[in-house]
């Protein structure tokens, strides 16, 4: 079980910024993802947290091969995903699936649920009608719907049920990795727990790995085995979820955790209020990218780029304070 499934090495994605309508000149680059590395093991969940614009979604698109990286490599089961062509690419498409945030826009309104669910199978593998129907029935049951509901259209479902349909369709092609991009944030509070529990149960049953992209820290705490904190296209801290939440080391992680809302009115904590906002990724700050907002910034932080340090137990942090 505990084999490495996905390895991401020094991944970069720069989007060009252009000027002019006809003769477009490149005037700069948005450094959406700038040199990140991590691994995901079979049957494990990696949580990716960070504020909007930190590169979480670009990372998940790169892994889905919906974007081409500027530099760096992504290996699935030891094979470079950029090398896949033809049949091997189709196989890859069945191996890595995604569930998106908004179940109102991610399901085609013109397709029946059974066709949505089986699409990844039909497109990428040669399956008979019977195999298809059996698999649809199986996954619909797994996500807590009944097979008759395969004949319905998405508009006939509520939000939570739609997200179940989205999970079923990701699951249908026996994937090894599912990318969950904010899977519960569009759902109602009472429905969120249903879907989170479903995902945790499915992982236990099928051994699928998840890359969970979320901004809600408690959601990540609940579901993820490892957590990576991103800031401006870089991973500033990485570690086993338990360890990272108990003992956050990077000032950004600490600020992020302190900004999480309390569970009880008497739950007083020291709130670290960050000044300002995330700077533009077109022209990121020199040295440590967090230094303009960091309450502990030193002189060297604006000059020297900090290196990733191992603080034991697989807890990695990129900060001068911990050298």
């Amino acid at each position, binding site marked *: 079980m505990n084999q490495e499934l996905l390895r991401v090495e020094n991944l970069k994605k720069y989007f060009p910024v252009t000027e002019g309508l006809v003769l477009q000149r490149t005037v700069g680059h948005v450094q959406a993802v700038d040199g990140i590395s991590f691994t995901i093991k079979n049957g494990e969940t990696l949580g990716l947290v960070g504020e909007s614009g930190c590169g979480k979604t670009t990372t998940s698109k790169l892994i889905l091969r919906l974007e081409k990286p500027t530099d760096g490599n992504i290996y699935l089961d030891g094979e470079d995903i950029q090398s896949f062509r033809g049949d091997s690419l189709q196989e890859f498409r069945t191996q890595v699936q995604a569930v998106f945030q908004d179940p109102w826009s991610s399901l085609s309104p013109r397709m029946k649920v059974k066709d949505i669910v089986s699409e990844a199978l039909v497109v990428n593998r040669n399956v008979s009608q019977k195999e298809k129907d059996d698999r649809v029935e199986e996954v619909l049951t797994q996500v807590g719907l009944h097979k008759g509901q395969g004949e319905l259209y998405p508009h006939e479902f509520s939000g939570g049920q739609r997200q179940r349909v989205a999970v079923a369709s990701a699951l249908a092609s026996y994937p090894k990795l599912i990318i969950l991009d904010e899977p519960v944030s569009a759902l109602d509070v009472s429905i969120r727990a249903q879907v989170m529990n479903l995902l945790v149960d499915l992982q236990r049953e099928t051994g699928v790995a998840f890359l969970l992209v979320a901004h809600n820290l408690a959601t990540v705490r609940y579901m993820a085995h490892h957590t990576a904190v991103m800031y401006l296209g870089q991973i500033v801290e990485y570690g086993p979820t338990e360890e990272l939440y108990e003992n956050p080391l990077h000032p950004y992680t600490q600020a992020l955790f302190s900004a999480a*809302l309390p569970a009880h009115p008497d739950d007083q904590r020291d709130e670290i209020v960050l000044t300002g906002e995330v700077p533009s990724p077109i022209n990121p700050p020199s040295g440590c990218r967090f230094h303009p907002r960091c309450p502990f910034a030193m002189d060297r932080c604006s000059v020297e780029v900090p290196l990733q340090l191992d603080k034991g137990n697989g807890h990695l942090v990129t900060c001068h304070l911990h050298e």
Partner: protein
Amino acid sequence: MSNNDVILQVNDLHTYFFNRRGITKAVDGISFSLRQGETLGIVGESGCGKTMTALSLLGLIPKPGARIVSGEIILDGEDLVQKNKQEMREIRGRKISMILQDPQTSLNPVFSIGNQVIEAFSINEHGNRKSMINRAVEALRNVRVAAPESRMKDYPHQMSGGMKQRVIGAISIASSPQVIIADEPTTALDVTIQLQYLRLLKEIQSETGLAIIFITHDFGIVARMCDRVAVMYAGRIVETADVRNLFNKPSHPYTQALMGSVPQMDRTDRLVAIDGQPPALWDLPEGCRFADRCSHVRQRCHQGYPDMLRVEDDHLASCWMLDESWSNTDQEVTE
């Protein structure tokens, strides 16, 4: 606290939609009061009527289609339900105002920030252009917009979400209202920006004595911001209490379930999910509206809607379990 502090009193408010499906009871008999300087949280899921409650208070319910069927909204001694369109225009902004959820859509994209803040002031007062500009700069400074003079000429697209939400804050308190309704003002913001904004609202409140109605689905925001809470379900308030009482002793099964279904930063035990979904507002059951999802349900719950019953001082919940005769009720559970 004396009753004299009460500036807003809502009594048995009913706002219904009339359409092909029949009558949709979006707000179905809501009562609450709000004191000066107090923050009341209205918590509930989408479709429970919290936004329609806010729009009813502002006289902004969609017309035709929706109508306030009965009830009173007493603001500063006057019943807003009886006011006509023109009178409501006078009241909106000056006495009661609102901050909406999405900062991207609540500002006009073709006018500069300065223009829109000045517009908010010019409803109330007239002065020369220069003094209005100064007032607007001051208002932006009050909501901690950095370098407000240079920001005045910016357009909404040049600002981040957090900044825009601050500008909207400045606009809504421009004419010093007594009550402000904040409808999920931070859901579109990042956590670190959310914290900045919540702190700002608290600061403004302590400076001006503003009363805030905070509409949210997030118990974390309630714990951080509110003095009192009303939990809504399917168009009605099912529990109301002082914030500490509510967290210490949630008494309505819905409140309990909702709190149990929220993941916390410091624990990872399995979440208690609430099965099913809220009932459709055009086809409400006769009895308790939560009965179909409730784990304590008995025959009686389907027969009649429970009154607001006392849990402790300043803490009411509408659940038959609080009734003295509950333990004698037959135990039969209906499917």
